[in-house]
């Protein structure tokens, strides 16, 4: 198996301890939890998505664990500005704040709260189950461009997280790039539904939800591939990664780093166990030689 040489990496304006990043919305609600994921081996952590107003989220069930995947419709619960207090002891750590809003102005406002508090921003333009937010904006290239532009004013590196629930994800990557994005992240969850036959209703309280986990890995690889072809900025891969070999595959498709979320259901030690397989001190390859190599 391909192995990489270990050590800190600089990805789109953010210095990470390794290539493995905690994906937004998983164990990222409190500062203590983010710190715990860093101590368990994550090279960087993305926070729960924070918006302009506190939100309690959708009624449950919010998460359904199914064979090979997870379905969720959390509904972007978040404490809004109160979240800043969670970051007090993390100002020198590789923390990226995930933010959302309903308009470019709201993106700009929420982004400004985080100046000097985190190393970068990730724009959630991709959550598939929060009406008026996320993918509602992220499926309009003009909105993607404007929200990116507004968030950039905070002076932080901006990563734009894209939805796979569009015909051509490349178009949205280009829109983000035009708006000044430092990187694109692909993908957020795939819009999906399951029905409990016993209950005769959808398994999620919200009905529609987002699919994540190993089942979406091939979709994520395809999206990373298309973005790598279309964009000049780095692509960060996300979706279904659960092994070191998945990380390498994402990188070969064009990812400079990867985010891991659903694999945490197996164990919260996923980062250190993947890292142990992925890195080799002697004879590890330089990631630069791997990223996008499958395109040659």
């Amino acid at each position, binding site marked *: 198996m391909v192995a990489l040489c270990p050590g800190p990496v600089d990805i789109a304006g953010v210095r990470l301890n390794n290539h493995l990043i905690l994906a937004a*919305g*998983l*164990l*990222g*609600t*409190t*500062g*203590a*939890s*983010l*710190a*715990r*994921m860093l101590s368990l081996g994550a090279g960087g952590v993305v926070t*729960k998505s924070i918006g302009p107003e*506190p*939100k*309690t*989220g959708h*009624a*449950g*069930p*919010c*998460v*359904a*664990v*199914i*064979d*090979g*995947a*997870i379905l*969720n419709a*959390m509904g972007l*619960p*978040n*404490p*809004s500005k*109160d*979240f800043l207090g969670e970051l007090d002891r993390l100002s020198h750590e590789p923390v990226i704040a995930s933010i959302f809003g309903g308009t470019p102005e709201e993106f700009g406002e929420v982004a400004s709260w985080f100046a000097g508090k985190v190393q970068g921003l990730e724009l959630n333009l991709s959550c598939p189950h929060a009406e008026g937010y996320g993918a509602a904006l992220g499926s309009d290239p003009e909105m993607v461009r404007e929200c990116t532009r507004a968030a950039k004013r905070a002076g932080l590196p901006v990563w734009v997280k894209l939805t796979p629930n569009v015909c051509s994800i490349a178009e949205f990557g280009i829109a983000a790039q035009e708006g000044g994005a430092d990187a694109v992240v692909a993908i957020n969850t795939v819009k999906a539904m399951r029905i*409990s036959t*016993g*209950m005769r*209703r959808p*398994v999620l*309280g919200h009905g529609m939800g987002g699919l994540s*986990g*190993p089942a979406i*890995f091939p979709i994520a690889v395809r999206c990373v591939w298309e973005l790598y072809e279309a964009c000049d900025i780095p692509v960060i891969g996300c979706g*279904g990664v*659960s*092994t070191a*070999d*998945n990380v390498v595959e994402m990188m070969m498709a064009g990812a400079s780093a990867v985010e891991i*979320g*659903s*694999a*945490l*259901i*197996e*164990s*919260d030690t996923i980062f250190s166990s993947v890292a142990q397989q992925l890195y080799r001190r002697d004879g590890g390859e330089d990631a630069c030689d791997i990223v996008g190599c499958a395109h040659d």
Partner: protein
Amino acid sequence: MTAAKTRATLWGVLMIEEIPSEPVVITHIVRETASIRTFEFSRRFEAQAGQFCMVWIPGIDEIPMALSAGNAITVQKVGEATGALFSRSEGDVIGIKGPLGNGFSPEGRVLAVAGGVGAAPLRPLVTYGQADTFILGARTAEELLYADELNGKVDLRIATDDGTRGHHGFVTALLEEADPASYDTICVCGPEMMMKAVLAILDAHGVADRGQFSLHRYMKCGVGICGSCCCDPSGLRVCRDGPVFTGDVLLQSSEFGRYSRDASGRRIPF
């Protein structure tokens, strides 16, 4: 503990295994007190005392509840979802996902200390013959949960705040009287301020590490991924690393007895 089981596939990808919400029929409803009812259902889950389940009330919400038996939950009506459960009748269907969490690990001589509906996760200790002494508290005699059921099955000691039954006062007085250091495991569940007082007593007797406390935090997923139940300063998840934590761990907690978080993640002081 129901960690999602995983298996490797051909491509070396980990496959997550389903954690189903099992549809169960409510078979029997017991009116325990004016505000507490036990709902027995058509399926029995293999659970340890202190493990919980996520209860899906169709069309309303999914909420965490201790398994008060392999086939039962005991619910206090406090709001929308619990209120909706109270309007369900025998024959209605709810979903049960579980058992979840770590549960109690009773060893040697076991003392249980319960306040209010906190008796629910402790009840199986008696059913399974794992408890030697059971201290049960409530505000008033009519609110005592399982008092008649437990009587005779365990050395039951009762306290009521208003003195209408048993000791007049709090469970903490009975705890002092019982000499906590003479027990190997002290399992506790009740209002957090009560648990904090119990921990202080155990600590004073030098046996905080023998205390096992079942915590209540807001839970959205119940399976350890969303982060809504994480505690400070460890970041440990109540749904997966807990809900039972030992007293020595809680003594290090900056959160226990001080605040918890609501559905949005904002801190709410006790």
